[in-house]
């Protein structure tokens, strides 16, 4: 909402010395937030004066252009009183016109400095200005021609153009629809400075009668009040007066024609949207009804709208002539031949207007006000005001008829304990203050005992409960007076175990050299194809957005891998060739039965209702994904580095599990998007957590990743469920006995199986076992591999006797031979 300060002052006697900044600040403190201040004069340095064009000599140039060599009377503004010689390229003026002249020394919008200069063979001393050159909204190419007799040569031009009038632009919250009018803004200014307010909607109204245009309201709920007035003898050729044009423009609206301008002006002035119909084009009585199925309407913007039965329309005998509160129809539009006008000012149901506006994607100045709530007592005054202006400015004669159908609802009554504002805000607000402030917003207030009764003003549909009164009082007292008191919570339990563990997960993975990233969970079939997921892969079953931001990514991800792999590829593309990243985020798993109930809000949901909500919300487990490529360790003066690969992805998952006190089972798997020979399934206690390993070459290619990039994804929630709290180990201080064994097995035998067999056979003296070498080659034999293990033996209570560790080793080897066919080398 843009409000010219001069217009505000028309209704409020603000202190003379009040600065615009102070006014804006006070209004902001009251809840009308300052968005911007516009004072066109601030962008310009004078002299900018009125001049009368004395002579014009047209001088054709070689390039075909014609320039004007003018002399302009600027009276004494140039210091000499002599006519000023000025070159001008525009042609929309004649001798005798009043124009706006910037004299040498002036600086125009954009820092354009005016000086005497030689041009086209003359000494041009100044410039005849266009609106654009003054930083004003332009309405054509030409220079400004002021109305004859509106000023005299030498006058300051800025006040004439309204350039010294500041316009305050407010951001109006949805609950303060009344402030979408000068009436509302001025009322706030008045209460802000505790000065009287002259309500522009308060004047003597003609009584309703049956002589006017007939109106039939068939839907009283949709249209509680409808006022129609008529005028005849309107002169459509009359121009909109400059002062009105200026105000419309200051408020961000374009001047269109006198009839339309008056309608808009009254909406800005009072906040009541209204409409002018060409009475000659309206056939029969006006009806307010719901649209019929298949009904069509060409709206003012010349678009044919297919109406829905839920749309409330204004209609005549020929059908709809407007969507109520949203936009009028083209067929009854006032034109340059309109002389008889029907003025509509009505009150429409906010929800109906909101839905129609949304349905037709047709937000307008009118719908913006109606959907937020217009003063239902306003239509008669607004219609009368329109008529007044049509008479005054358009030469029309007011019709005798005053059609008023329906009436505004009773004003709402809200009762509250008189100390409620003090109790809720924590400010010491005495009862008198509460009463005074509620009266200042227009409420009728009475107090009986501890109970306050407020009759809510008709323009405040937002006030419906005691707490709404609290806010009104609090904002006028001033939020800056709210004291600061730290609330004391009962002793808390700190983070939950899972919240604590999640922090540990981040630290462990980051500690392993991975960088955490955040990706968008939006994905696509194409991403799943890139991951080479089989057609029946459960991960392809995804929730779909009704209105995705990007039509090519309509799905909510069931796996973090697309996001992580795209991010990894982006890093590689930006030259971060050695990158290791991870992400923890929710994935979204559809149930196939997505239908949540919309419950009432007048009570807490029943257990059944709550269960229905919980059931409809899809499962969203937290996953962890990681991916890496390039060098895991760099080459350097210390020697060769090491390329990232399948084992790094598995190692990261293993290390994480270790840090959570979880013993993982790792076994070979062949699952997309991994390399079928380099993919590990990780599980705990028979619960599959996820997979890790090298990415399939096709997947690397599809995501634009270097070959051998590796990745892992696990269900983090499931992993955390198995986390254990650390238990202190018992360890022996007796000497250790070390035994190494090298075993040859078939290449297909997993090392983990050999290790498990060794462990089993070694018995309880075994302290630890570690695979320290894997070897293949001729000595070992085709299809075989050699695994070298270091075994450490120790007894808890004694030094091992000679041969004890050897015997345990032999038992271990024997078990490995039995289970895996291992042969000791």
């Amino acid at each position: 909402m843009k409000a010219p300060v001069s217009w505000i002052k028309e209704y409020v006697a603000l202190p003379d010395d009040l600065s615009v900044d102070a006014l804006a600040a006070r209004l902001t403190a009251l809840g009308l937030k300052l968005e911007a201040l516009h004072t066109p004069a601030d962008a310009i340095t004078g002299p900018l004066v009125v001049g009368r064009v004395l002579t014009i000599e047209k001088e054709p140039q070689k390039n075909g252009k014609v320039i004007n060599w003018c002399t302009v009377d600027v009276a004494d503004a140039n210091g000499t009183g002599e006519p000023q010689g000025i070159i001008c390229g525009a042609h929309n003026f004649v001798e005798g016109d009043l124009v706006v002249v910037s004299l040498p020394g002036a600086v125009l919008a954009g820092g354009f400095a005016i000086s005497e200069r030689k041009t086209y063979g003359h000494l041009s001393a100044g410039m005849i200005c266009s609106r654009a050159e003054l930083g004003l909204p332009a309405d054509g190419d030409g220079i400004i021609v002021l109305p004859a007799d509106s000023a005299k040569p030498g006058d300051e031009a800025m006040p004439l153009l309204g350039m010294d009038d500041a316009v305050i632009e407010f951001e109006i919250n949805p609950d303060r629809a009344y402030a979408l009018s000068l009436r509302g803004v001025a009322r706030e200014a008045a209460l802000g400075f505790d000065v009287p307010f002259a309500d522009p909607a308060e004047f003597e109204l003609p009584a309703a009668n049956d002589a006017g245009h007939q109106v039939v309201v068939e839907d009283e709920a949709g249209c509680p009040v409808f006022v129609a007035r008529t005028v005849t003898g309107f002169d459509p050729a009359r121009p909109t007066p400059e002062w009105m044009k200026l105000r419309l423009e200051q408020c961000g609206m374009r001047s269109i024609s006198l009839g339309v301008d008056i309608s808009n002006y009254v909406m800005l002035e009072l906040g009541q949207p209204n409409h002018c119909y060409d009475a000659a084009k309206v056939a029969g009585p006006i009806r307010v009804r719901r649209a019929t199925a298949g009904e069509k309407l060409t709206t003012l913007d010349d678009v044919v709208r297919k109406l829905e039965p839920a749309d409330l329309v204004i209609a005549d005998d020929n059908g709809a002539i407007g969507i109520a509160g949203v936009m009028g129809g083209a067929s009854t539009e006032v034109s340059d031949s309109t002389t008889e006008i029907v003025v509509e000012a009505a009150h429409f149901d906010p929800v109906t207007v909101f839905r129609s506006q949304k349905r037709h994607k047709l937000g307008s100045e009118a719908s913006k006000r109606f959907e937020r709530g217009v003063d239902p007592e306003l239509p008669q005054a607004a219609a009368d005001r329109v008529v007044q202006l049509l008479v005054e400015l358009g030469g029309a004669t007011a019709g005798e008829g005053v059609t008023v159908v329906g009436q505004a609802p009773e004003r709402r009554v809200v009762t509250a304990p008189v100390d409620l504002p003090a109790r809720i805000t924590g400010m010491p607000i005495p009862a008198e203050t509460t009463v005074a402030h509620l009266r200042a917003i227009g409420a009728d207030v009475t107090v009986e005992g501890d109970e306050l009764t407020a009759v809510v003003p008709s323009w405040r549909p937002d006030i419906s409960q005691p707490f709404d009164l609290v806010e009104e009082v609090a904002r006028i007292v001033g939020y800056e007076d709210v004291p600061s008191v730290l609330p004391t919570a009962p002793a808390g339990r700190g983070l939950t175990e899972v919240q604590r563990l999640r922090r540990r997960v981040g630290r462990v993975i980051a500690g392993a050299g991975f960088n955490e990233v955040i990706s968008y969970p939006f994905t696509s079939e194409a991403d799943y194809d890139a991951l080479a997921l089989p057609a029946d892969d459960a991960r392809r079953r995804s929730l779909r957005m009704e209105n995705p931001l990007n039509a090519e990514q309509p799905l909510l991800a069931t796996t973090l891998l697309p996001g992580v792999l795209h991010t990894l590829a982006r890093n590689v593309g930006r030259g971060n060739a050695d990158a290791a990243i991870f992400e923890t985020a929710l994935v979204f798993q559809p149930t196939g039965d997505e239908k949540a109930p919309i419950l009432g809000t007048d009570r807490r949901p029943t257990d059944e209702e709550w269960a229905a909500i919980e059931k409809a919300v899809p499962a969203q487990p937290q996953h962890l994904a990681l991916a890496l490529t390039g060098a895991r360790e760099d080459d350097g003066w210390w020697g060769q580095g090491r390329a990232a690969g399948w084992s790094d992805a598995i190692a990261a998952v293993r290390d994480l599990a270790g840090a959570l006190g979880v013993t993982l089972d790792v076994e070979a798997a062949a699952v997309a998007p991994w390399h079928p020979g380099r993919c590990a399934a990780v599980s705990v206690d028979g619960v599959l957590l996820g997979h890790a390993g090298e990415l399939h070459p096709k997947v690397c290619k599809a995501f634009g990743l270097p070959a051998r990039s590796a990745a892992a994804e696990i269900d983090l929630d499931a992993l955390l469920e198995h986390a254990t709290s650390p238990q202190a180990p018992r360890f022996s201080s007796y000497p250790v006995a070390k035994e190494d064994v090298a075993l040859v097995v078939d290449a297909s035998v997993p090392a983990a199986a050999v290790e498990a067999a060794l462990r089993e056979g070694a018995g309880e003296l075994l302290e630890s076992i570690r695979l320290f070498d894997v070897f293949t080659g001729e000595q070992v034999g085709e299809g075989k591999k050699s695994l070298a293990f270091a075994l450490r033996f120790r007894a808890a209570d004694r030094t091992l006797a000679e041969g004890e560790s050897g015997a345990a080793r032999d038992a271990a080897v024997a078990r490995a031979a039995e289970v895996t066919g291992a042969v000791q080398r």
Partner: protein
Amino acid sequence: MSGPNTEYDPVEVTPLQAAEVEAMRDAAIAAIGAAKDLEELKQVRLEHAGDRSPLALANREIGALPPQARKEAGARVGQARGAVNKALAERTTVLEAEHEERMLVEETVDVTLPTDRRAPGTRHPITTLSERIADVFVAMGWEVAEGPQVEAEWLNFDALNLGADHPARTMQDTFWLQPADAALVLRTHTSPVQARTMLTRQPPIYVVCPGRVYRTDEIDATHSPVFHQVEGLVIDKGITMAHLKGALDHFAAAMFGEGISTRFRPSYFPFTEPSAEVDLVCFVCRNGEVGDPAECRTCRGEGWIEWGGCGVVNPKVLVACGVDPEVYTGFAFGMGIDRTLMFRHNVEDLRDVFEGDVRFAAPFGVEI
């Protein structure tokens, strides 16, 4: 060693003469002193203090002397050997010290060589900032509440006094899920977590909910369809706006430094009444206390930074969430974590937060 010599001839045992013993001693000490390193000293030790050294041989001859001469000769040779051993020990210490010194010099490395075998990992600053924020409240006894991101429409809107026809709904451009009547959304704020908390716990409630939220904004330098909020909710007896102010002032000081406080401006949120916007004193120029706001890049001359929204929980919300508004009042607040990160750590472009470039997170490490 020889047995006692009965056929004794004093002329035969000249090595035991005093002059001879002294000569042997002096020769040994001279050789020890001349040894240039531990290797040479080892040789000298063999020659002059070993089993076959002159003094050792002389010592052997003592037994051959007549008893009356043995004592004198024994003392003489013993003293000489003592002197040689002492010299050896001293020389060893000196040479060992020299050796070590030389070795340390030879082993000198260039300590300015790079040591970056592997780049350190990082946690995302949004994660660590969320944790830090949570910690401020956990320290006051609050708890951290969480909820799903695909959320029931009723919890995201209706329960928060944002009915289907509320104009404020359109202000939160919402991602809706299919099918069209699923009544499921990607939550547009973390407020449904507050509703869930009220529905599943008994007051008093003191919770903070950091989390990821979604709106249909195209990404640019200051917008993202995915972003992060932190909300606080307190429901207790006798809670006022003053408690809200107290909690936010404490939060501001904990995050931005002692003395950084907040101010309220009237605003509108369907779920709170009265509602306010929260500004933070600029923690760089302190609104003129430390620097000139006009030159401040952090607050852009305002002296204050817009931080979030807050208010007293609307009784309509309490009713829908099963809290008795006659007994309890509450307050709620919400801030953008991404925005907070941006102004607290000079992030210029929000896209950096979501693009996952490993260079972005590097300065943030694992704590913030």
